[in-house]
């Protein structure tokens, strides 16, 4: 998918550029953008490393466990068809906790583990309702510490690089709720029904 998007952005750009007689501006834009990629990346190194250091402490000291404790009752409600003592529940909780803290690398293995446990219950090549629900929680991804974006903003001289975080938590929370409601409706349609 990204192959086509990338290619067409460049291809359409150059064709439209020829039609508009803007080839010289395009050449300049190519060189400038490549240069900008370097400036931006170098500018990110400091803030990024600082965050990764802090977040490593969070990871090693088990801060995810605290978040997990808060999340547990909510998760059990969202996944009523998973047995409460199933290891799937704890894998889901750890995955979401790690995601919330912006520990993306730590979250993925938990997510895959959760999917494996869910697949043991499901045993089909189409996803169970719980799997789709888990997926939606992951795509709406409520992030309390979106480290990369804080880093980008900090490196570009934001007055307060983290000022977007609460607003972004609101909007992903809204998306999560709407996603789950839509999902509830869709999963019962005969066309999509579990089989």
């Amino acid at each position, binding site marked *: 998918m990204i192959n086509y998007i*990338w290619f067409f*952005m*460049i291809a*359409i*750009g150059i*064709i439209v*550029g020829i039609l508009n007689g*803007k080839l010289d*501006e395009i050449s*300049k*834009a*190519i060189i400038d*953008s*490549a240069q*900008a*990629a370097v400036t*931006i*990346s170098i500018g990110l*190194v400091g803030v990024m*490393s600082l*965050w990764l*250091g802090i977040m*490593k*402490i*969070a990871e*090693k*000291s088990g801060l995810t466990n605290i978040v997990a404790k808060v999340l547990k009752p909510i998760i059990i409600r969202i996944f009523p068809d998973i047995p409460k003592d199933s290891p799937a529940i704890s894998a889901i909780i750890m995955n979401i906790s790690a995601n919330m803290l912006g520990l993306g690398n730590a979250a993925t293995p938990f997510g*895959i583990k959760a999917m*494996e446990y869910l*697949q043991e219950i499901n045993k089909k090549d*189409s*996803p169970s309702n719980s799997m*789709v629900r888990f*997926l*939606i929680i*992951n*795509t*709406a*991804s409520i992030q309390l510490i*979106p480290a*990369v*974006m804080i880093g*980008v*903003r900090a490196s570009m001289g*934001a*007055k*307060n690089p*983290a000022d*977007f*975080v*609460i*607003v*972004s*938590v609101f*909007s992903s929370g*809204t*998306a999560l709720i709407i*996603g789950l409601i*839509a999902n509830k409706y869709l999963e019962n*349609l005969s066309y999509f029904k579990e089989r």
Partner: protein
Amino acid sequence: MVKIISESLIPVLILVIPFYGLVKSINIYEVFIDGAKEGLSVILKIFPALLAMLVAIGVFRASGSLDLIEKLLKPIINIIGFPQELVPLALIRPLSGSGSLGIATELINSHGSDSMIGKMASVMYGSTETTFYVLAVYYGSVGIKKMRHSILAGIIADIAAILASVFYSKLFF
């Protein structure tokens, strides 16, 4: 309230997380150094994707294509009050994480971190994940081949996140 929490977030985290580590008797300094070391490798991973995306956007923008698309979409996005500058970000966010980071970065760079567009781009990037990547990785890992309503529900959540980021940004900034 929102302002106070936002402003104190970074200092509080830098105080509270190491403190919690100390309480749990972790070698916080050593662990910090160890984690910070990964910074460069993360940047190395981001850099090529950022380069690829910035060049593509650069070409697209310089040619006037972006203006063209914005003109075409104007009637629709004007009705819902969606800023046209954010259209490319909204379109690519569910498809590519690094690509959308590139676009968001470019927006913040050209409009300024504290501009409305810059903030909206940050919120939009931060409030949703790369749906198709999550789908591919998680279903792929257990051999799920049929999608049922996964894509539709995921896209509905994405659209909700994108519209909500614009809505809440206007409300709070």
